[in-house]
């Protein structure tokens, strides 16, 4: 993964702003995905995405707490332009289907968490500020924990549970 955002990550406050952006966007995206699944009555998958949204939100809240604890007066606006089409932990809308199974939803989440772990590890390697480096290492570790957690969750949905056999409610005309 090539990034250049972290080249500017020279202070703890900048790093925190960056992490806040990553986690907030990931959380918001999961919430939107949950909504679209709800609207199309795939509640099992909606629940998974909602849970993922909650996890990412907790993460974002943690960052916010750190800002307060460190008594940082200045937190740069978390308005990032990702070098990739989407944020490093943001789910891709085009991976969704209303018939998708819980297993497929979790695989999507796993993919996002793995991406995030690699991404933060990459930052840890490249930044020069020691505090920022430490923070990035912690972030990478947290994402790796998420990966393990999603992998565990996946055990509830073994391969052969796939119900994507046929579309019993094919598209209908609406206009």
């Amino acid at each position, binding site marked *: 993964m090539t990034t250049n955002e972290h080249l500017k990550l020279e202070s703890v406050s900048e790093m925190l702003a960056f992490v806040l952006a990553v986690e907030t966007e990931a959380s918001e995206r999961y919430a939107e995905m949950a909504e679209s699944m709800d*609207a*199309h*009555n*795939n*509640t099992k998958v909606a629940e998974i995405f909602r849970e993922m949204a909650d996890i990412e939100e907790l993460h974002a809240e943690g960052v916010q707490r750190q800002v307060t604890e460190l008594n940082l007066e200045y937190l740069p606006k978390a308005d990032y332009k990702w070098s990739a089409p989407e944020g490093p932990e943001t789910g891709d809308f085009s991976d969704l289907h*209303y*018939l998708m199974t819980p297993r497929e939803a979790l695989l999507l989440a796993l993919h996002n968490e793995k991406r995030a772990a690699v991404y933060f590890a990459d930052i840890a390697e490249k930044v020069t500020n020691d505090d920022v480096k430490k923070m990035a290492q912690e972030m990478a570790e947290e994402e790796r924990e998420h990966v393990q957690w999603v992998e565990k969750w996946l055990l509830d949905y073994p391969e052969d549970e796939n*119900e994507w*056999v*046929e*579309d*019993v*409610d*094919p*598209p*209908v*005309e*609406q*206009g």
Partner: protein
Amino acid sequence: MTQELASSRSVSIAVAGSGGAGAMTTGNLLFDVAAKQGWFGTLTRTLGPQIRGGEAAAMVRLTTAPTSSPDDFFHVLLAIDWKNVERFAAEIPLTSDSIIISDVDGGDVPEVISRSGAKIVQLPIAKTAKQIKQGRPNMIALGILAEMVSLPERTLSDMLEKKLGRKGQEAVQSSLDTIKLGRELAADLPVVAKADFEQPAPGERMVISGNEAAGWGAIKGGIRFVAAYPITPATEVLEWMSSALPKLGGSLVQAEDELSSINMAIGGSYGGIPSLTATSGPGLALMTESIGLAVASEVPVVIVNVMRGGPSTGLPTKSEQSDLNIAIYGLHGDAPHIVTAPMAVEDCLFTAQWSVHLAESLQAPAIMLSDQFMGQARAAVEKPEEIDFGTKREVLTEGVEGYERYAVTDSGVSPMAIPGLPGGQYTADGLEHSPTGTPSTQDAHHAEQMDKRLRKLTEFDYADHWAAIEGDGDIAIVTWGSTTGAAREAAERLREFGINAKLIAIRLLSPVQPEKMAAALAGVEKMLVVEQTHSAQFFRYVRAQYDLPCQAKAFNRAGPIIIRPGEIVNEIKNWS
């Protein structure tokens, strides 16, 4: 209750479920098997607003005699799940005699449903489906319902083989096994219907939708060119014709919009090929200027308008009869044209064929007003009889010196030259013209051409196809279109109560038939005008166009809640 329902002539069943639940599949299979078994009836549906995976309900009515009416309530509502059921709860009326079947793990029955007081039966639908590999809850539902309407296993397995066979034997077997478990679950449930008749011979019955019937009828009438622009709920007319036309050497072209599709159809018909387009309210609104062109240039063309709720984009998937005004009055200037309306799914076949006959015979546009309810309903009906109206456009067969395309004739119809005929060349024109077609602003030309265009419509013999008049009595139920089914059933029920009610269902909305209507209304003291509009368009039309020698009252309601026969019965019983 078991006894009562089992002996009745009709049973109504709704199957509801959200995306992926397959409620429509269940409803369709149930309906097809019942039709095979010999039941008559209709299958309608209601949908949520999603393109995919929305909540849906299949509404099946099975009857022992042909009917196009919905019943007053549903005997059975089977919910595979309850998601968003409030969106169409009002479309599934229940009473305390009804049975609600739901999944024991699917949560409480929502209040909008349970307040009917219906008996609630909770069964392990999803859990039982899991016992079978690839087993689906909707097949459990099909099993339960098949048991409740006593559908033979053999008919059901044959149908499944036919419908699912392409998915392989494993899929069929899995479904059959699941259905079997569903049947076992229904062991303690009452039988709500039992066929005490012979299975009809193959080919004796048909299952067809109104939109398919409209397309087929149009082709029977001679339509060989169609210009199409998709719109709900009319698209199926066009799609069906698209594959049917090439079998007859005809063709269909997809237009860029409705302004284009109507003009393409006029162009094709000007070329001598009977032509049609199909649309719904928004499309009809765009077409009106050009329908006026067909009036002035005397080019036959058929517009099938499958009505939905309006105004504007309105309710694309829900039925209404509110395009009546635009169909009759929507053209600018004095523009005599034909407006017809089928009365039921199977009547779409007859009325479409007749509409082509009228358009071709009268060299005028014919708007056929179908609606979403009958257009998208599937009906199990007797195979219709072949009809031959002897449809023939009056054409110029040989070129003549000084040919007058718009010659003023007694009938008002003038022989039309078809491009390719030497000596018949003329220019069709939407400008007022002289008999030769030359643009003219002279008063005499305008007067004689207007008279001719009106005369050909008013002088034509529409025979008794103009309306369905059934029964006798001093009370008349006057209606049109898909509310005819409910009106007819209401009249039948009133007769059982000793009230003689006459049904007058109008198929020819324009031009009006004053003498025939006067005869139909002779002896009538009260007439109830039944229609699915908010502003009582049909009631106002009847009052404006006909002399009414009786009291008249409107019973009207906007969509999407359809009018049911019991409501009409009550209106009449309470009319003092």
